[in-house]
């Protein structure tokens, strides 16, 4: 059975009408894993076949009324999964098996999902290409020689290669949107706090969001319906009840929708090859009836600098617990990128430097947030590219961290501001996928889905 183009929604229909079984789905995933995992380095841990088939049989014994009944899902290796190894793609946690379940994976399981395995990623989610994995980089589903995009590299490629129907990842500075775009998929980074962070290895706590990658907007809305909500175990989770996001997918056109475009975003180093494609995508929004309005975001050019002070600061503290006493491996097992970020962060927080770095960056962060707040007084959503370049060749930039940091130019301001953003496929350049994103004000996920759905239908 070919599941590469199968969405969750149609799979559920087929399951409920008994056209297919959950066992069929799981076997198809396992087949694709056998075929591709070795080459593409997608999954770090695959659940035992027997256990998966057993779960599928149990799902098939029901009427599949649960929202994710029998649906195979892959989870980024940042999420604690009880009794299933969780490494964050770092050698430090190579032998760590959690004794507890993250809120997101618990909710998925309760909804009937079958967790196929744990996805490769940049170690600790530090990276935009996937090459910082301590266990071989994941390869792009459209070109094996190129990067998959990161840090949720394995999550995106697992969906693209049919190892699951949807995958869960995290997005701290673009980590779901970049790999989704690089593999022609839909990636949602929800509002900060909309989805619980409990049980997910922390990268930068004030920016981390629990995101997911799917084949279309409807599936994305469906997954958010399950993962969103307040969590008594996460003090930063948003108390407001989530909406029914599937109900938002009614729009056929974009009449009356004001779409913001920032000249400040254009200043960034967008690869010339991409300009035409991105413009075409924007034209499509106009064709659907959307009105393009220029909005200034004057502080966003400072986003990358701000991001690379605040994020490493939080990282240096969040990684302190891996002290070699628990979890087996010591601090010498940290990879180069983790070490670099620990050092930058430790420096930024040190007395004498705190005011000049951490505190100054916090102030700029506030200005960036204000930019967006003002912009959303005039527009409904803001349009932007996802990545400024096409996927690099694997190894092409590994010795150039500064260039790699600039990959976050369009994505990091969104995380600094805690906003939701939906990354959508925009076609191909040189046979490689390109993505755009629509950014909304806090808790505007329904709006993003509704606009994204209209765009996707074209």
């Amino acid at each position, binding site marked *: 059975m070919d599941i590469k183009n199968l969405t969750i929604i149609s799979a559920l229909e087929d399951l409920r009408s008994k056209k297919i079984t959950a066992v069929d789905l799981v076997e198809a995933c396992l087949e694709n894993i056998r075929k591709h995992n070795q080459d593409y380095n997608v999954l770090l841990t695959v659940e035992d076949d027997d256990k998966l088939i057993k779960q599928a049989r149990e799902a098939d014994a029901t009427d599949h009324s649960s929202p994710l009944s029998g649906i195979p899902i892959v989870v980024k290796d940042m999420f604690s999964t009880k009794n299933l190894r969780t490494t964050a793609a770092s050698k430090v946690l190579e032998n760590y098996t959690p004794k507890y379940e993250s809120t997101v994976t618990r909710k998925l399981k309760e909804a009937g999902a079958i967790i196929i395995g744990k996805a490769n990623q940049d170690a600790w989610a530090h990276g935009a290409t996937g090459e910082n994995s301590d266990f071989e980089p994941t390869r792009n589903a459209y070109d094996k020689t190129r990067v998959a995009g990161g840090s949720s590299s394995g999550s995106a490629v697992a969906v693209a290669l049919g190892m699951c129907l949807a995958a869960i990842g995290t997005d701290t500075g673009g980590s779901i949107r970049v790999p989704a775009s690089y593999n022609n998929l839909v990636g949602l980074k929800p509002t900060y706090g909309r989805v619980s962070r409990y049980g997910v290895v922390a990268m930068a706590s004030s920016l981390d969001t629990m995101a997911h990658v799917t084949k279309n907007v409807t599936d994305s809305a469906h997954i958010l319906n399950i993962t969103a909500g307040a969590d008594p175990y996460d003090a930063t989770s948003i108390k407001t009840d989530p909406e029914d996001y599937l109900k938002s997918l009614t729009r056929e056109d974009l009449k009356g929708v004001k779409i913001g475009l920032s000249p400040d975003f254009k200043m960034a180093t967008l690869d010339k090859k991409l300009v035409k494609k991105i413009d075409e995508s924007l034209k499509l929004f106009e064709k659907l009836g959307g009105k393009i309005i220029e909005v200034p975001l004057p502080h966003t050019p400072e986003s990358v600098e701000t991001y690379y002070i605040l994020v490493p600061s939080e990282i240096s503290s969040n990684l302190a617990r891996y*002290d070699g*006493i628990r979890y087996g491996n010591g601090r010498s097992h940290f990879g180069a990128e983790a070490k670099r970020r620990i050092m930058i962060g430790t420096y930024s927080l040190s007395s004498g430097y705190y005011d000049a770095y951490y505190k100054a960056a916090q102030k700029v962060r506030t200005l960036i947030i204000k930019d967006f707040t003002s912009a959303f007084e005039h527009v409904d959503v803001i349009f932007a590219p996802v990545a400024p370049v096409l996927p690099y060749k694997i190894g092409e930039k590994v010795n150039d961290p500064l260039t790699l940091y600039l990959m976050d130019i369009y994505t990091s301001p969104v995380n600094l501001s805690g906003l939701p953003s939906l990354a959508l496929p925009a076609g191909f350049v040189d046979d490689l996928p390109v993505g755009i994103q629509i950014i909304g004000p806090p808790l505007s996920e329904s709006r993003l889905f509704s606009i994204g759905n209209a765009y996707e239908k074209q």
Partner: protein
Amino acid sequence: MNTYQPIIGLEVHVELATKSKMFCGCPAEHFGIEPNTHTCPVCLGLPGALPVPNRKAVEWTILLGLALGCQINEHSKFDRKNYFYPDLPKGYQISQYEEPLAINGSLEIRNSKSEIRNIRIRRVHLEEDTGKLQHTTVNGKDISLADFNRSGVPLVEIVTEPDFRSVDEVDQYLKKLQKIVRYLGISGTDMEKGSMRLEPSISIAQIAKHSRSYKHGKDFEHKLPDYRVELKNINSFRFARKALEYEIQRQTEILEKGETPTQQTRGWSEAKNATIPQREKEGESDYRYFPEPDIPPLRISNEQLAIINKQIPELPDAKSTRFQKEFSLTEHTSNLLAEDKSVADYFEEAVKNSLAASPSPLTPIIDVANWIINKKIDINQTLPAELIQQILRSKQSSQIDESELEKIIVQVFAENPKAVEDYKKGKLQVVGYLIGVCLKKGNFHQAQIKEAVEKKLRNV
């Protein structure tokens, strides 16, 4: 010629007696509990676990702040204090740095010269306790074991300005602080169990003979000595006293030689009866404090504050003053009664009981006070109403005719010949039995009966 003036400041840690820990649902109780049984992903600092602040602990810290006359910050937040130690599973302690819950309070004490001294309280903040290491030998190998039952127990830190000028003042402050915390019912403040811990810092100022005396803390603000010795490992008030006295002498001797004592941390060694240097401290350690991103900032509303304020009970000083006024007791007696809230409450309940018998009270209030203080009444065993009856009985029985008592004893002995025989054979424990029987027959004071029964037995 110089005189020397000790300058002492205090950091006191008090573990809150909340049911659950500071940031998770584990029981906060840890003393004498099997190691690592009161733990969960949060207090073990497992990857991905997140802290959720304990509302009660926040309220109690505010309560203590208010009781110490502090200003409560409308905006408060938690910060991370980053340092490595094997008993700190996250590699940082969640504490409060920039915006503690309470600041700028004070506590009035009376020193040995009967001078009223106002000790300024710089801040009262909330943090989490660490785990505990046990250094032990297993199979002949020296090893360290970590117990995380204590990890994440709520801990309040009360920091004073360097306002103490003598060891006695420190002693008075600690006793008063302990009393207040116990009154509020927020901590056992048991030094032996570690639920109250002290860290004094001490330095000695040299004062030229002609300069005016340094009585008030403020005079020192620009003249504090440029070094400071922190004292650790002090687990009783007595050790605090000894360690401070030792330091005063040690530092004075160094100053006499024209040298400056080293800025350092010293621990009290009971075995050596001396303080000994711990790790050297050069200036401030770099804890890389920054705002805890896992916990949103706290906002304390006026409404919340008003509700908490209402929970402050009458505190020891106020209670003592009221007892003096309301019951015409001496300051000494009132203070003794107000020492412990449950004793004070018991006293008032007993008095109420006595006064309820109109038109005239059953017994004078001073008698009730004296009985409670002098006879060490077990307030958990004797109900207040029973106490009044006991006092009454003792008064009546003391007036009872000696011959009446004699008659009863004769009767009891006659009715219990075997007991009397047993006594003669040397079974002395029958005395208790005979006293008990007599007690049932008349309204006597126990001591009075005991004396009479024993006397009679000796004469049989």
